[in-house]
């Protein structure tokens, strides 16, 4: 009974994480389309939400992949999974508040690793796997995406330089919508699976499923819905930073960025790397700034992001470890419930704080003035 209640809390928390993953990452696919006006903000998030839903169902070979290869899975308990998720959620919400695109995958991995260390010690972590599967790809992927996007942008502008502005904008807006849709689809396939894997891991740790089982259908369905709903809600703060903060984007650049992102994400998952969509998308957007003559790239904004990326794993790990420690000291169901209440409290606090400088569909495209929220005081919208 107690075990089942803890498990239920873990599943709810995992779906909550999946939701934050969705709205944190809407911008990866749609920020450029929203910034260039290829799609209205509301249309863009709706389209991305639907494609994430479809993407989550496209590939059903789901296993507990997120943790295997990174930690000794037999040492992972349900409480460890819970604490790891708490670390991931808090990091996601904090970075969202600051409008910093950061990797939800890293937040989750960091949280789970921190909780595992707190529970079983450092030997429970497969450090080699962590470096070769997570850290090195994370360092390389934005650079590769930047290179591809810059090349694409340069080629596009060169080839299309004789076309009238109106035809060019119109044509590339269509191309932008197509390529952004591919990124949304790939995101649904990659990221929804991560949460499916985590819930499956918890079910296995609880003894509900046999070791090595695949995700049951209800897990796939609820995860798909959670990430899709999160995407639809739209992380406007992150969308704004990606679409307006880094580079002023025109539609040809938008298409170049999303094509580069889609190519890198799909190719990498083909080779078994589950990259951070966020790192790739940011690299691509910087690339289209580098590739177009005279475009202004705000490297200070990019630097702020890169700093956040460096801290994602450690801070999520510290929160995950702390969360495990607290649950462990109190013990049993009560410990997890206390954690859960604190998590809800922090999440609520961050949400209320975000209302003071709300960013939403109506002001997401306002002129970039160096801050996440547009500087002019806005009556809080929805």
């Amino acid at each position, binding site marked *: 009974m107690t075990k089942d209640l803890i498990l239920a809390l873990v599943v709810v928390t995992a779906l909550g994480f999946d939701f934050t993953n969705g709205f944190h990452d809407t911008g990866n696919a749609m920020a450029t389309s929203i910034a260039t006006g290829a799609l209205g903000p509301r249309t863009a998030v709706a389209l991305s939400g639907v494609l994430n839903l479809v993407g989550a169902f496209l590939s059903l070979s789901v296993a507990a992949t997120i943790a295997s290869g990174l930690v000794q899975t037999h040492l992972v308990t349900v409480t460890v999974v819970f604490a790891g998720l708490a670390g991931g959620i808090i990091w996601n919400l904090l970075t969202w508040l600051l409008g910093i695109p950061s990797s939800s995958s890293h937040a989750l991995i960091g949280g789970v690793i921190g909780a595992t260390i707190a529970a079983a010690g450092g030997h429970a972590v497969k450090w080699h796997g962590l470096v070769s599967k997570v850290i090195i790809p994370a360092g390389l992927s934005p650079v*590769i995406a930047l290179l591809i996007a810059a090349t694409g942008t340069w080629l596009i502008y060169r*080839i299309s330089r004789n076309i009238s502005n*109106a035809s060019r904008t119109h044509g590339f807006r269509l*191309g932008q919508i197509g390529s952004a849709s591919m990124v949304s689809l790939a995101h649904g396939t990659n990221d929804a699976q991560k949460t499916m894997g985590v819930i499956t891991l918890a079910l296995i740790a609880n003894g509900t499923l046999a070791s090595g089982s695949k995700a049951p259908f209800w897990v796939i369905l609820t995860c798909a819905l959670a990430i899709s709903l999160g995407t639809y809600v739209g992380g406007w703060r992150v969308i704004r930073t990606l679409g307006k903060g880094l580079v002023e984007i025109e539609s040809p650049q938008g298409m170049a960025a999303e094509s580069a992102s889609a190519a890198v994400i799909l190719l990498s998952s083909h080779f078994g790397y589950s990259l951070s969509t966020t790192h790739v998308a940011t690299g691509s957007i910087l690339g289209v700034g580098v590739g177009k003559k005279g475009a202004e790239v705000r490297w200070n904004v990019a630097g702020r992001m890169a700093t956040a990326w460096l801290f994602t794993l450690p801070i999520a790990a510290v929160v995950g470890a702390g969360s495990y420690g607290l649950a462990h000291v109190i013990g049993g169901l009560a410990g997890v419930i206390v954690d859960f209440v604190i998590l809800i409290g922090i999440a609520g606090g961050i949400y209320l704080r975000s209302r003071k400088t709300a960013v939403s569909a109506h002001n997401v495209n306002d002129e970039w003035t160096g801050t996440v929220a547009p500087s002019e005081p806005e009556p809080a919208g929805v």
Partner: protein
Amino acid sequence: MSTTSGPGRSLRPSQNPQGSDGDKGENVNSWINLTALWQIVVVGLLAGAGLPALFAVGLRALNTPGSRVQTAGAGAAGGMTGTDTESGRVYGGNPMGLAIGVLCFAIVLAAIGYGIYLIVAGT
């Protein structure tokens, strides 16, 4: 040998980490899969930069100079309305450009279709 298939499995794991290409530089490969890396870069450039470039070629072909109203298009750049007349003019103006354009877009669409196929089948 064949009779010890059960315990034999425990003798084999040395084969597993090698994978399909264990010949070269195992030390480096254990940290970075260089084979995957260069393929991601090269194929990524072809798909991620090449396809948008091809799309641009298609757009340019559809807008090939030679149609006399072309310059008026630049004048009307401010307004996004009238795309129908605009494209009608272009199609009428240059059938060769139309053919090249359609071919380019067809290749781009086929590549997207292949990408979706990879998502569905490749995992």
